[in-house]
C-alpha cells in the first residue's frame, strides 16, 4: 500500500503494464506522469518530445515495433496531436498504444474548456476514466490490454482532480519488469489505405491484400458488447428513487452525498455498456448523469434512447461545472443547508515571478507602445489587466504566425511584434518562423529563452542544457536555427540590462525587416538564480502613482499602513532585478 496521486499511479501502471516507450509534452496537471516514470522506472525509455503530435507519432512507431508505449499530454495538447491520433484510430495495433490525456476540469490549472472525450467520439476509440489512484494504476494496465485485444489506441482520461488527489494504492511489490512484446501485424495503415483495399477486395484471400484487412468497426462494436460484462463498469443497485450514471471523481461525490442512490460507475466511458444503462434506467424513477466537463456521456446515453437528466439541472458552458459534493447536494438533496461564503474577498490573477524576463519584455513594449502577440507560455500573464502588455494571445506557438498575418494585413504600417517563449518556439512556433521567411514576412520575433518550459515547472526543451536524453552535442541552438531559416537580423540580449534590451527591440522593430531578438536569461524560479539585495520604496518620495504595480511583479504590494496605504516591496520575494526602479518617475525605488 502506498499513498499516490493519480499521476504517480498512472506511472506505476505503465511500469506494471510492461511499457517500453513513453513520449509526451508537459501540460498541467499531468506533467508529473512522465517525471515519475523517468525517476522511478528507468527500464522505460522516456522523452519530452518537441510537441504532442510528435509524442503520439513516437508512441505509434514504438507500438508498431511491438512494444507497449504511451503518449502523455493535456487535452489542449491532444488538439495538436489529433491528426496523429486519427491516423492510429482503427489501425492495426501491435504493442498496446495508450494516450494519457488530462482534462483541466474546473479550469483549475487555467486550461481551456476542452474535453478529450470528444476525440473518443470523433475517432471511435475507447476512453477509460479512473475515479481514484487505484483505478488510475489498474486502468492503465487495462488500457494496454484493450488496445491489443481490440486493435485500437485507447485514451486514459485523467483530470485536474484525479491527477492531484492522493489515495492508497495496492501495488504488486514482487512485480519484476519485463517489456511486453507482441507483433501481430506486418503492416499498420490508416483507415484511408485500409478501406481502399477492404471495400474493393473484400472477398479476396490473396495474402498481399488480406494483410490490409482490419475490421475496426467490428472491433469497437465487440468492445461495446463486452463492456456490459466488464468489471470496469460497476452497477450498484440500491434505492429506486434516484439513479446516477457517473464516472471519474464525481462517482465519489455521488456516493457521499446520495448514499441511497443506485449508481452506475463507468470506468470505460466509451463505448457505453448499453445493457447496464438500461438496467439502471428500469430500476429507478429518475435517472441523472453526473459528469465533469462537457455533456458527452449525456449525449451518448440519449443517443441510445435512454432519457437522463444532465445539463438541464447542472448547466455547463460557459461556466463548465467542476462537480463538487456541494453542487450535487444543492440540486438533489432537499433542505440542504445554505452556506454563504465571505463576500468581496479579492480574487487572485496569475502574476509573474519577481525578476522574470517576461516582465522586462512586457515593460519595454508597453513603454514604447509597441503592440504584440503572445502565446500561452509565461508571457500569457502579460495579457491580464494588471499588466495590459499584449493585445493578441492564442494557443501555444501561435504568436509568430499571428504577427506575420497582422503585419501583412496592415502593410507594416504599425509596429506589431511576436513574443514567444523558447518552449513555444520549439513546439510549433518554429513553423511560423519558417513560414514567415519563405512568404517574405517582415515582422519581428522576440524569443524569451529561459532555458526550459517554465510554465509547467521547468522541463527541458531542445535548447536546454539538461533533460532525460541530454547530450551537449545534441543541444539545439536557437540562434543557429534562426540563421539557418534565413532571419536577417538576430541579436541576443540579457533582459536585466534594460538599456540594451530596449535598444535591441527598437532597432529590430524600426528596421522593418524580418528579425529575431533572443532575450536570454534562465528562469529565475526553475534555476533558483542568486538574488541581489531587495529594493525598497522611499515612502517620502512615493506619490502612489502605481506605475510600479503595473509592472506586474509578485513582490510589489499596496498595503494598508498606518492611516493610509503604502506601496511596499516584499523583501522575501524581491530578487533585486531593479525593473521597478526604471519605471518610477520619482526615483523612490532604491536598491
Amino acid at each position, binding site marked *: 500500500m502506498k499513498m499516490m496521486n493519480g499521476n504517480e499511479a498512472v506511472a506505476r501502471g505503465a511500469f506494471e503494464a510492461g511499457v517500453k516507450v513513453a513520449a509526451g509534452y508537459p501540460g498541467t496537471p499531468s506533467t508529473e506522469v512522465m517525471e515519475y516514470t523517468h525517476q522511478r522506472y528507468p527500464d522505460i525509455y522516456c522523452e519530452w518530445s518537441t510537441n504532442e503530435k510528435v509524442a503520439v507519432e513516437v508512441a505509434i512507431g514504438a507500438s508498431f515495433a511491438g512494444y507497449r508505449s504511451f503518449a502523455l499530454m493535456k487535452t489542449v495538447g491532444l488538439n495538436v496531436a489529433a491528426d496523429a491520433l486519427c491516423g492510429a484510430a482503427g489501425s492495426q495495433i501491435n504493442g498496446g498504444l495508450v494516450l494519457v490525456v488530462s482534462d483541466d476540469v474546473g479550469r483549475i490549472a487555467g486550461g481551456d474548456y476542452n474535453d478529450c472525450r470528444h476525440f473518443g467520439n470523433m475517432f471511435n476509440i475507447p476512453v477509460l476514466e479512473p475515479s*481514484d489512484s487505484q483505478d488510475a494504476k489498474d486502468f492503465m494496465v487495462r488500457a494496454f490490454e484493450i488496445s491489443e485485444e481490440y486493435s485500437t489506441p485507447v485514451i486514459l482520461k485523467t483530470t485536474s482532480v484525479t491527477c492531484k488527489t492522493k*489515495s492508497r494504492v495496492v501495488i504488486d511489490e514482487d512485480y519484476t519488469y519485463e517489456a511486453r512484446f507482441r507483433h501481430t501485424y506486418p503492416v499498420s495503415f490508416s483507415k484511408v489505405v485500409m478501406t481502399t483495399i477492404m471495400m474493393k477486395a473484400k472477398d479476396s484471400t490473396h495474402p498481399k491484400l488480406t494483410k490490409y484487412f482490419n475490421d475496426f468497426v467490428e472491433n469497437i462494436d465487440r468492445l461495446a458488447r463486452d463492456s456490459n460484462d466488464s468489471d470496469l463498469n460497476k452497477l450498484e443497485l440500491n434505492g429506486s428513487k434516484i439513479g446516477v450514471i457517473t464516472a471519474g471523481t464525481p462517482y465519489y461525490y455521488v*456516493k457521499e452525498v446520495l448514499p441511497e442512490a443506485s449508481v452506475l460507475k463507468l470506468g470505460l466511458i466509451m463505448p457505453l455498456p448499453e445493457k447496464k444503462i438500461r438496467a439502471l434506467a428500469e430500476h429507478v424513477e429518475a435517472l441523472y448523469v453526473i459528469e465533469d466537463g462537457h455533456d458527452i456521456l449525456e449525449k451518448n446515453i440519449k443517443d441510445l434512447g435512454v432519457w437522463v437528466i444532465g445539463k438541464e439541472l447542472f448547466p455547463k458552458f460557459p461556466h463548465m461545472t467542476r462537480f463538487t459534493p456541494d453542487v450535487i447536494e444543492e440540486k438533489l438533496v432537499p433542505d440542504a443547508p445554505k452556506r454563504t461564503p465571505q463576500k468581496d*474577498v*479579492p480574487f487572485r490573477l496569475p502574476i509573474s515571478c519577481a525578476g522574470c524576463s517576461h516582465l522586462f519584455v512586457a515593460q519595454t513594449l508597453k513603454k514604447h507602445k509597441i503592440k504584440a502577440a503572445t502565446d500561452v507560455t509565461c508571457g500569457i500573464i502579460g495579457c491580464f489587466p494588471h499588466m495590459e502588455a499584449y493585445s493578441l494571445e492564442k494557443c501555444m506557438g501561435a504568436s509568430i504566425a499571428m504577427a506575420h498575418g497582422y503585419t501583412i494585413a496592415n502593410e507594416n504600417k504599425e509596429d506589431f511584434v511576436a513574443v514567444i517563449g523558447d518552449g513555444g518556439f520549439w513546439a510549433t512556433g518554429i513553423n511560423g518562423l519558417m513560414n514567415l521567411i519563405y512568404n517574405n514576412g517582415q515582422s519581428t520575433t522576440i524569443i524569451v529563452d529561459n532555458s526550459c518550459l517554465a510554465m509547467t515547472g521547468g522541463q527541458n526543451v531542445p535548447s536546454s542544457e539538461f533533460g532525460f536524453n541530454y547530450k551537449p552535442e545534441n543541444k539545439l541552438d536557437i540562434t543557429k536555427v534562426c540563421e539557418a531559416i534565413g532571419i536577417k537580423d538576430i541579436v541576443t540580449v540579457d533582459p536585466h540590462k534594460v538599456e540594451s534590451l530596449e535598444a535591441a527591440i527598437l532597432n529590430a522593430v524600426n528596421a522593418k525587416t524580418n528579425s529575431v531578438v533572443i532575450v536570454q536569461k534562465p528562469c529565475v524560479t526553475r534555476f533558483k538564480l542568486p538574488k541581489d539585495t531587495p529594493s525598497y520604496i522611499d515612502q517620502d518620495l512615493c506619490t502612489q502613482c502605481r506605475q510600479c504595480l503595473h509592472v506586474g511583479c509578485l513582490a510589489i504590494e*499596496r498595503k494598508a499602513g498606518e492611516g493610509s496605504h503604502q506601496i511596499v516591496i516584499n523583501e522575501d520575494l524581491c530578487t533585486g532585478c531593479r525593473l521597478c526602479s526604471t519605471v518610477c518617475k520619482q526615483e523612490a525605488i532604491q536598491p
Partner: protein
Amino acid sequence: MKSPDTGKNIIIAGVGGQGILLFSNILSQFYMNLGYELKISDVVGLGQRGGGVESHFRYSNKPVLSPFIKAGDVDYVISFEQTETLRFLHCLKADGVVLTSTYELTSSTVNTGLQKDLSESKTEIIKRSGKKVFAIDPTEHKSPDFDISKMMNVVMLGFYAQFRGYAHDDMTDIIKESVPKRFIEGNLKAYELGTTISDGNLVAE
C-alpha cells in the same frame, strides 16, 4: 476520557510557495502511521505565480469517499495567508477551528486598483467568525534560527500538533525525512516555536 478520533476534515490553504504541500505530506505520513484511511486533494492552480493553493485533507477510520470536503464538513482550516482563510470560513462546522497566519499577500487586482480590498481588517473578520480562532502573526515571532517567511508552515504544524496533543517525536521524525538535510535544524526550531506559541494560546484561553 476522550473518545477515539474517528477522523477529521482539514483544509490547508495559502498561496504558492508557502509549503502547503510539505505540510500536507508530513501530516499524511503521520496519519498513515496511525493506520488511518486518507484522501488528499491538492488544488494547485498557477500556485507558483501568486495564486491560491488549497489542499483538502481527509483522514478517517473508514474509507474516504469524496476527495473534496463539502462546505459545512470542515473541522480545521489551517491557512498560511489570511485572505485565503476568508475563502473557507463558511466551510467550517459549527465547532470548527481556524488556525491562521496573519500574513497577507495582497492580490494583484487590489494592488492595481481593479478591485477594492475589504474595508475591515481581515484578522478581525476572521476572529469575529464565531469559530474557535488562533491567529499567529509571523512578524512577532521572527527568529535568528530560521527564516519564518519560509517556515511558517512548520511553525503552524507544531501549533497544530500541540493543539491536538500529538507525540512530537513522531512528527519530528517525519519532518527529518521530509526536508533537505541542511534545513532540518531550522525546521525543528520552527516546529518547536509552533508548539510554544500553541501552549501560550491554550493557557491564555
